[in-house]
């Protein structure tokens, strides 16, 4: 399954890919009742939109597209091999373990040889894009409603966060 940037669309990922990415991002910056996580602010929305922009807005976009398409498929396969469950159905603990292996470059059920994916590079890309999706200007799609800035205290005094409740 490739990304759907062709034909043109406002988003790059297919729904299943986006669900996988949401899972991974939430594991990178998990939320709780009193602190927002990646899912609370739709962090993956930023890179989902950025990868869809044609012509590409930044020179690394083409490489990121390829890395995500291959990387998400590989992570899903690794999750099925390691936790016996699809990535989208994995528990937070299972996703955490998967990412810990990726960060250390020790996932075994991962493409090797020609077409190999650099596990540490994939992890670093996921982490950087998760942080961007959480803390960049909301205009780019992530950091929904500026909720992460409000809790962190960027450009204003930090405010408490209450998941699902009034802020």
């Amino acid at each position, binding site marked *: 399954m490739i990304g759907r940037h062709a034909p043109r669309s406002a988003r790059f990922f297919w729904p299943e890919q986006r669900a996988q990415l949401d899972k991974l991002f939430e*594991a*990178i910056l*998990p939320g709780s009742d009193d*602190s927002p996580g990646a899912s609370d602010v739709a962090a993956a929305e930023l890179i989902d939109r950025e990868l869809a922009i044609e012509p590409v807005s930044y020179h*690394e976009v083409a490489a990121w597209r390829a890395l995500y398409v291959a990387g998400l498929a590989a992570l899903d396969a690794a999750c099925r091999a390691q936790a016996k469950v699809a990535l989208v159905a994995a528990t937070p603990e299972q996703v955490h373990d998967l*990412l810990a292996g990726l960060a250390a470059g020790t996932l075994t059920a991962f493409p090797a040889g020609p077409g190999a994916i650099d596990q540490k590079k994939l992890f*670093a890309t996921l982490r950087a894009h998760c942080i*961007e999706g959480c803390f960049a200007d909301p205009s780019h799609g992530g950091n929904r409603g500026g909720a992460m800035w409000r809790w962190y205290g960027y450009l204003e*005094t930090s405010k408490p966060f209450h998941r699902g409740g009034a802020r």
Partner: protein
Amino acid sequence: MTRFDRPDVIIVGSGAGGGTAAHALTARGFTVTVLEKGEARGAESFLPLDELHFHARKALIPGADVDPQIYAGVDGKQRIAVERWWEANGVGGSTMIWDANFPRYTREDFEVLSVMKDVPGDAGMVNWPWSYDEFQPYFEAAEHLWCVSGKTRQHEHHARQEPTRDGYELPMPPLVPHAHTQFLMEAFGKAGMMPYLGARAINSKTHAGRPACSFCGYCQFFGCPVNSRANAVNTVLSRALATGRCDLRTGHCVTRLVHDNGKVSGVMYKTEPGGPEHFLGASRVFVSVQTVQSARLFLLSQIPDPNKMIGRYLTYHTKGTAELIFKNQPVWDAGPAFQPRTAIGSLQLRDLYTIDDPASGLTKGGKFSIYDPYTCTPPLRQIKTASMGKTRPNVWGKELVDYLRELRAHGGVSFSFTGEAMSLYDNRVELDDVVVDPWGIPVAKTYYRHHDYDRRLADYALGRVIDVMTAAGGELRRYEGQTEANPGYGHVHGSLRAGVDPGASVLDANCQSHTVRGLYVLDAAFMPTAGASNPSLTLIANALRVCERVEVS
């Protein structure tokens, strides 16, 4: 044909050095034509203030895909295409996006051999051919021309701040001190160290027709949205243009320097990639296009180099970063007051500029800029480096949440070290034999490895401030010493060394080529050694010094 088609002086590059020269030379009555490869950027080019666009996606510097620098790695055998962080092609150059941190180089930098008792055998350290005292009048002129805020002699015993002439003062008082200033002053005071408020080319009050800093929070890699930060356009280029003796031509890429029989006669340039080369003639050409690019232009132009010195002794400052959190302190910016944001108002620490500790095996050190990580750095840049100790860099998951919780609740501090770097002959600029830039010209290839001295220096200096901060209740979070590799990020100097011995330098003591008369270099490429402070002020002072000595033909 106008007088600018045969000017007295051609200036290549419109940044700190080129802009300053345009002002200094037009003030003396010379006509100058400034050739700038990039475009003029107005306020709309810098807005909206968006960290993703300007910092994370590096919108204002050339892309590594189409216009890179090639780094050969520590073994000299790699081909790593890297971005040129401090080469913001455009009118004003990198002064449009800098932090405007404006310390002086001091005697310890000019006379490094009198300070260093332990120069490694493979290092080519040399004294500069000028003294600090000779530079003092030009430092003073540069500080006023570029509108610097700060305060001289902040301590009764002020030897650790840059020395200044009795009765001399900067044109503006310091920016509002950061909220952690008193806490840090007391903590360092207990250790016998004395931080001080740093000099910045940022308005602390309305000055020269520009407003005071509004503490908006966007400095490095952003244009200043209120024009309170000095740049080449709002200081020197505007003055040069107002004389009627300066013509600023954008979109003019100089492809080579033209010389014959040991004299410069002009430059060849293009106005569009793939277009024809044109000639512009002058009996003097001043090059100021950033260290690596100036060396590249010398190599492209086949400037005679009988002693194989062009491109050699390239230096990047030794760097290091440490960040700590004080769980015994509330966040400095607790509100409702809104404290100064970004690098402005930061403390500087020069107590380790020289090192008197025989056990260290080090004698020449460097300085620190001290920041509050929470309010001095925009969030993407800050949080991407989130660490929970020396062995826990780039944390994620629960550790990242813990890091964020600490940062928004407790006072923190971060130290950015700028240190001396050993000059090595093999650290150099060459022309790449594969990659060309969009104008069809071979790009620069750098060979660079930091000497073991640099790496030990960064660890030693960081260790000293970490000890002081730990005694005050701090816990170490982020730690980055100096790596052996340097792909190209940081203050860069050398490669076209100035000196009095034509056998050991490329430029003479007035920064004119030993082998091509009339050809001058004004960016940091002239610096014989790295020194240990942010280089812009010293580069600007040197430009004023050189231009004062240019003879009327």
